[in-house]
């Protein structure tokens, strides 16, 4: 699919009315903020992952290929690494299946680099293939997310990330002002978005307060269902992992009221 693939997908999509975001955030990044590099060749997926990350208080740079990711990180040529003193990347999250360079190949290149090998890399894939997962973990991937990625997945990543960044803040990046980076206290991860289905009807954002709270709609009932028990999908002939603690958490669709 032909695409001009810039650094931030939001630049191309004028329909996105996300507040205050019109292009690449190239201003010097706030040291306290988590900066994530997201890599996915699918525009829809890029938009979703970007939103998932922003809603969990991350700064996001989204690119559409492994090559662009390397370019962004300055790993594509012999550029002096001094230039990247101010480049702060706390997490790289990449799709596995991409044309050209796969997420796995990107992972390897990142782990080979001296500047970024400490940065956690998370792989996303729509296929729950154990050999693929193993290969990525062996190569040093921090985690493996099954697509479609959910808010709970990103929140979990975010909470681990804050711990890591807090602990190794001084080591992670070479910055001119070391004092500010060592002492920066990251706020505990508290999701800004509270998921309370009762509070607002789906698809609407009421800027004015309603006099009466709407009754719990069927859709709201769906979203209050516990997500703890994965359902086997007859379509897939892959392994199921029911443990929520394992990094490979298989997010299965719930079909409320169906079959």
């Amino acid at each position: 699919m032909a695409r001009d693939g810039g650094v931030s997908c939001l630049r191309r999509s004028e329909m996105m009315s996300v507040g205050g975001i019109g292009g690449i955030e190239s201003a010097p990044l706030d040291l306290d903020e988590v900066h994530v590099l997201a890599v996915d060749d699918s525009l829809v997926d890029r938009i979703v992952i970007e939103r998932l990350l922003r809603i969990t208080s991350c700064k996001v740079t989204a690119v559409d290929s492994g090559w662009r990711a390397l370019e962004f990180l300055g790993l594509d040529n012999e550029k002096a690494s001094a230039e990247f003193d101010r480049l702060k990347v706390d997490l790289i999250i990449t799709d596995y299946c991409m044309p050209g360079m796969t997420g796995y190949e990107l992972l390897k290149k990142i782990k080979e680099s001296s500047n970024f090998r400490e940065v956690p890399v998370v792989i996303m894939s729509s296929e729950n293939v154990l050999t693929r997962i193993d290969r990525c973990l062996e190569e040093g991937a921090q985690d493996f997310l099954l697509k479609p990625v959910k808010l709970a997945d990103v929140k979990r990543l975010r909470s681990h990330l804050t711990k890591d960044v807090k602990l190794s803040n001084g080591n992670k990046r070479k910055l001119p002002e070391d004092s500010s980076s060592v002492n920066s206290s990251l706020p505990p991860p508290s999701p800004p978005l509270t998921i309370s289905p009762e509070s607002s009807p789906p698809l609407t954002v009421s800027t004015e307060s309603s006099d009466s709270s709407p009754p719990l709609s069927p859709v709201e009932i769906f979203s209050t269902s516990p997500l703890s028990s994965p359902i086997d999908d007859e379509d897939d002939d892959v392994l199921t992992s029911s443990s929520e603690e394992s990094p490979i958490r298989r997010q299965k669709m719930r079909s409320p009221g169906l079959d």
Partner: protein
Amino acid sequence: MLGLGVDRLQADINRLLASLFHQGVLDEQFLQLQQLQDETSPNFVYDVINIYFDESEKLLRNLRLLLMDREFSDYKKIGLHLNQLVGSSSSIGARRVRNVCVAFRSASELSNRPGCLRGLEVVEHEYHYLKNMMHELFQLEQQRILAAGVRYPM
């Protein structure tokens, strides 16, 4: 006092969504999208779905062009397009479209041309059904917002 139309419209929206879930047209991932919508991104669902429509229609057009070509033989390309469709449909919760794309993909893996043609028809059908339903949903939503803005003097 808010216009009574709001409650009625909200009920219509809920009914439509419940129906789409029940039919398996949408799945839980659609709810995830709704959770990503808030005051800072009030049109998120609308925007993502429209981008999904644009991307999907490009892919469907390409698929049709490929299969209509009498000398067609590039099943691998069909597979790649379908991977995209499967992925994006899954990401927005378009379960039925995703599933029929998977079936179509199986036909392409077997280099089964008539199977592919049938598969494409089914995908196009499901896709257009979804699109119509989404338009209806967005229209209801639009009306609801307008109705909520009307204040009756007391």
